[in-house]
């Protein structure tokens, strides 16, 4: 009973068994089903995806639309064409923030211990979460476009619109890894939310999402220039209503890939090792 180590015969030989790709897909699928059942159980969790686009569109178009539109040389209608692609960029970001808080609550429930004691790749839990959040994001973007048309947005370029939706989703999923990491690392949902708010506010407003940057002071212009949200908003604008696309698009894609490559392994590692 007091032998310091185990005899080799006591331990089965061989390395650990790897998990085949098909099993990974099966596990992720089962967990996606779980997250979808959550929404069915608690439809109120979709309120943000429904109300966010409605409130922001109405607020910006009717409160700021007139005056900013004037400087664009066309009144409120000109501002609608300007701000809708911007709001599309913002939507991915806001949905991404929700992932962190939601996952933090989920992580602190006992059921995570059960998942972690099962022979599944621990990334599956995170992939399933992101997949369902992207569906929510798609829903929010659809709502946004319906409201946009109601306030007079003129869809001139359908392929461009779809490409913008795709781009927001890609960038949104990259951001989700950042917020998932926060969700795993921080103690409670409130601090994740506060942290998300602190990161989001300057990025959102210090960008070309809501207004052209040329009237901003120089130092702020340098910030907005390198803010990935400006690139995303400008790409969407170019794709949907015309203008420069390629350069903004490449910057946005580079940010998306960069964030994913750096943050996804960190999120999975932190999730795996947190006890």
């Amino acid at each position, binding site marked *: 009973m007091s032998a310091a180590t*185990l005899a080799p015969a006591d331990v089965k030989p061989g*390395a*650990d068994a790897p998990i085949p790709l098909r099993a990974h897909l099966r596990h992720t699928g089962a967990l996606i089903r779980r997250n979808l059942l959550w929404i069915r159980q608690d439809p109120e969790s979709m309120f943000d995806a429904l109300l966010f686009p409605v409130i922001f569109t109405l607020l910006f178009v009717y409160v700021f639309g007139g005056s900013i539109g004037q400087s664009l040389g066309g009144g409120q209608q000109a501002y609608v064409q300007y701000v809708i692609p911007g709001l599309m960029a913002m939507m991915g970001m806001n949905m991404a923030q929700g992932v962190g808080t939601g996952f933090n609550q989920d992580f602190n*429930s*006992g059921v995570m211990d*059960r998942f972690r004691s099962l022979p599944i790749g621990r990334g599956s839990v995170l992939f399933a979460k992101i997949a369902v959040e992207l569906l929510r994001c798609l829903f929010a973007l659809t709502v946004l476009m319906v409201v946009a048309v109601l306030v007079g947005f003129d869809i001139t370029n359908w392929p461009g619109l779809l490409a913008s939706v795709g781009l927001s989703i890609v960038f949104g999923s990259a951001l989700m890894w950042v917020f998932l990491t926060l969700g795993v690392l921080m103690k409670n949902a409130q601090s994740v939310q506060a942290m998300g708010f602190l990161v989001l506010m300057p990025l959102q407003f210090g960008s070309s999402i809501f207004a052209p940057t040329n009237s901003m002071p120089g130092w702020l212009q340098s910030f907005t220039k390198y803010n990935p949200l400006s690139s995303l908003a400008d790409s969407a604008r170019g794709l949907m209503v015309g203008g420069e696309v390629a350069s903004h698009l490449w910057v946005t894609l580079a940010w998306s890939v960069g964030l994913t490559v750096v943050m996804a392994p960190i999120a999975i590692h932190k999730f795996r090792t947190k006890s």
Partner: protein
Amino acid sequence: MTRIDKNPEGGSAAVTVRGLVKHYGETKALDGVDLDVRPGTVMGVLGPNGAGKTTLVRILSTLLAPDAGQATVAGYDVLRQPRQLRRVIGLTGQYASVDEKLPGWENLYLIGRLLDLSRKDARVRADELLERFSLTEAARRPAGTYSGGMRRRLDLAASMIGRPQVLFLDEPTTGLDPRTRNEVWTEVKAMVGDGVTVLLTTQYMEEAEQLASELTVVDRGKVIAGGAIDDLKAKVGGRTLRVRPVDPLQLRPLAEYLDELGITGLASTTVDTHSGTVLVPVLSDEQLTAVVGAVTARGITIGSISTELPSLDEVFLSLTGHRASAPQDAVPTDTLEEVAV
């Protein structure tokens, strides 16, 4: 109760632990623990809050990496072969680890799919286990609406989906009322009857006595005693005598009186106001008789009298000469007494 006598073939142990150490900063949650659980037996790990029981279970179920030492479950090393290990274990935590938003059936189906059962097999297994744990009627309701006992049963069902060889039960009845606790015990006994090896942690001698054949007593991350439960009981020797005076006002005077007489066991006499009884530790039949005689001589009318297993305190006092050393305030005494029915 399943008692499996010494396995003549020997056989490799279902769980082996050697020199396991885990520190949290200054706190030594585990300080060199050795443990062996033979296949098909139930090992009880008895200790107060903070003794390191949960840390041990978390390491054995690969949720936590040890700082030093070695551990295997069903022959798989916790550090080197975690995935294979996870395939052969079941875990029921201290707090029911079910998804409260999902219906009971969906909880079990999900676990089945995560354990690589086919859709059909996962469905069949979910139905089967709901039936077995008497949850069929509640199958479609979210687990969040279940009572404490139902949730614990769902948790047990979830840990049985993969037909585990080794089952970890971490304080499976903490916080349950006596009736529900008996239900859980019945289920655990049935599972043991199926040949599963169980490692059970508990704060209650009564629970260990009900379920385990062998016992390891831990305190402050160290094993302080171990062996067949009957041997340990003989070693401890004590019992708890529960006396209910007809007049509840007599409770405290009676307890003080018995303490003054000094005819009782090692731990002091305690009052359980909840059930209106005085708990008296006794070491021998002579002491028991003396206590009954003293109560009678004092002229106190007794409504009921019964004996039960010694309390955790009594066990610790007789095995180590000191009280269970962990933060006792974390274990409200009234819970302890209430649960020791």
